[in-house]
């Protein structure tokens, strides 16, 4: 359905017309066809949520995750859970960056972020659950928890993660 003036009347998220070269009052709709199409495009550009650009290192990390079970490094369940978890982390923590990672001798995938006094790790198990652990070396404080990519990240997880990914 095409937007109509009433659709956007009183909508504060509507693009301000004057700033984009429309010589109209704020709640008016441009009647000229070219202006109308340009305005619709402007609205769509503003409404569509575009994914953030993915860095080369993030792409390399995603390739690594998706190559894990092919190389028989971990079970497909670990690969799947890690993939889901990474998407969840990217959505919840925009400042996150890829970890250092290694499969373990027990078939888990251990990811770690070591920065200054912060030690943060997440271990993904074949059961598709994960254990996270945070240590602040300077404060001598440790925190641990567990979860699943099918569950929301806990407030405690988020609090610790935000300390690392500022």
């Amino acid at each position, binding site marked *: 359905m095409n937007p109509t003036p009433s659709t956007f009347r009183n909508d504060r998220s509507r693009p301000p017309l004057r700033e984009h070269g429309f010589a109209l009052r704020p709640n008016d709709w441009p009647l000229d066809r070219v202006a109308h199409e340009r305005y619709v495009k402007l609205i769509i550009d503003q409404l569509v949520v575009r994914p953030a650009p993915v860095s080369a290192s993030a792409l390399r990390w995603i390739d690594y995750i998706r190559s894990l079970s092919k190389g028989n490094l971990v079970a497909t369940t670990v690969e799947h859970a890690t993939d889901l978890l990474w998407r969840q982390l990217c959505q919840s923590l925009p400042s996150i960056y890829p970890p250092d990672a290694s499969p373990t001798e027990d078939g888990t995938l251990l990811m770690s972020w070591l920065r200054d006094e912060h030690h943060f790790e997440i271990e993904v198990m074949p059961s598709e659950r994960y254990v996270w652990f945070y240590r602040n*070396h300077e404060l001598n404080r440790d925190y641990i928890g567990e979860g699943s990519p099918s569950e929301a990240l806990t407030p405690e997880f988020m609090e610790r993660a935000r300390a690392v990914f500022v």
Partner: protein
Amino acid sequence: MCQDRPNVDDGVVFRLCTQQKPDSLYFYKEPKPLPADFRLTDLECEEAEKNDGIGGLSVWDVSRTEPDQARAFLSTPRPTVYHLRVAAIRSITDLKLHVCRDPLADARKGADGHCLIANVYSKDEKTRRSIRASVMREAKYVNDLKPQRA
């Protein structure tokens, strides 16, 4: 674990990584110590449970064993070497970590350099991970691994 074995009070020990293939690792930027390389396996945890809860992490005295000699005992290629100062391990507060000699019953060169970092096991998972993180912090990466490239 170390009651009847001599302690190592100073010097440097090295730890070989657990990974067999550098390609299985991912480094975001430069190589850093990985928790997987300092992790007690499920089997080692079971053994520690049977040993009154005392567990040790295998390391080698640099003055007695070369990395290639240590690799020969392990039968699997372990490319990465981490150096740890004994004094730094002993200075980790609250954990009572120490290094004791644990020579292998093997006539090959370097067998006498095998040691253990004692008291790295705890029944409590949080404590176990905390000990590991503290040991990792003292580890210095010695040889370079090539991070995986896309």
